[in-house]
């Protein structure tokens, strides 16, 4: 029974995504509320950091290309572009590319919204949550040009670094990534 419900919800959710763009927070909340009743999220786990804890992960000095995306489940343009980051994570692994998804969901929503979302969407990229209220301190530390709007993305390799305060299409994201693969 649980399984049937799960599949049913999954299909509702995927239908919603196909027609997305105009979906509202309210309707998404309604879907998430239904999810939490049936989805077992005990196997979903992620680390929670303040900015000082996160900083090492966005400044790794190795020979890999790191793609770091700041997002949240309530941010419609973020949710829309998540599959593109998942695609990068899946298809560029062998080219030394690592994706990190940094969730800015509110801590009160971790269990009810973030974990069910990760499970339903079957996200494979590495996920951490950033919980640090002193945004005036760390937003500028992530990048001096960031106004604080979501979504935002960093692509970096060693000292080469590019910051994007924008949404991507899959093509745009791959074009940007390829600059780092040369």
């Amino acid at each position, binding site marked *: 029974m649980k399984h049937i419900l799960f599949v049913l919800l999954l299909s509702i959710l995927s239908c919603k995504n196909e027609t997305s763009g105009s979906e509202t927070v309210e309707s998404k909340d309604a879907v998430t509320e239904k999810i939490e009743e049936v989805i077992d999220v005990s196997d979903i786990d992620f680390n929670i950091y303040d900015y000082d804890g996160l900083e090492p992960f966005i400044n790794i000095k190795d020979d890999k290309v790191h793609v770091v995306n700041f997002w949240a489940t309530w*941010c419609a343009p973020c949710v829309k572009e998540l599959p593109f980051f998942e695609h990068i994570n899946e298809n560029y692994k062998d080219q030394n590319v690592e994706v990190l998804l940094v969730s800015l969901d509110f801590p009160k929503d971790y269990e009810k919204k973030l974990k069910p979302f990760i499970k339903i969407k079957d996200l494979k990229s590495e996920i951490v949550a950033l919980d640090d*209220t002193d945004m005036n301190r760390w937003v500028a530390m992530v990048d001096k040009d960031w106004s604080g709007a979501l979504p935002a993305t960093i692509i970096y390799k060693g000292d080469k670094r590019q910051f994007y305060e924008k949404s991507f299409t899959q093509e745009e994201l791959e074009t940007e990534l390829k600059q780092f693969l040369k």
Partner: protein
Amino acid sequence: MNFTKKNHQHFNNRSVVSKTLKLLAVMVLVLTLSAFTINTDGDGYKVGDIATDFSLENIDGNKVSLADYKDAKGFIVIFTCNTCPYAVAYEDRVEALNKKYAGKGYPVIAIMPNNTDVKPGDNMEAMKARAKEKGFTFPYLMDKGQKIYPQYGATKTPHVYILEKTKKGNVVKYIGAIDNNYKDAEAVTETYAEDAVNALLKNKEVKTKETKAIGCSIKV
């Protein structure tokens, strides 16, 4: 004959040169102007700039302009909306700001900048419902056609601009966040917006002129 022809040619050359110079001057002017236009479009206001007035529809159906507030000393302009969790987290604090400062000459003017085709939850009906439910005492305006927020350079909700009314116009004195804790109003240690208005009311320099905070991107 030859001489005249030469001279004529020379004259022609000169006119070509002067025409080219004129063209260059026009090109430089156009380039400079367009550079300025791009700048305002991309970055919006900096502290010290004169902010534009507007005439936007309020939830009560009336148009509201800054110029309507004859007795105001300035304004707390906040780009905000119904659907962004950060904006929602600050709703009560925005109302408190208006209650505290409208009487002192700094009313809150809230502007909803999102494209309501993308975010139906931010349409005029929804704005009215939200304002009624929360008992907003400040105007909650629709940036219809999304013409105003790009001039200010707002990128997200909530995004605060504190303006001081002067003879030159409404001067931007503070840009950024309301305070330093979106989660818990009780745990706030820096009240950026209040500090800015308090300083202006005492004719003092605003200490912290710009702050940054996470918000929801404005939906276009």
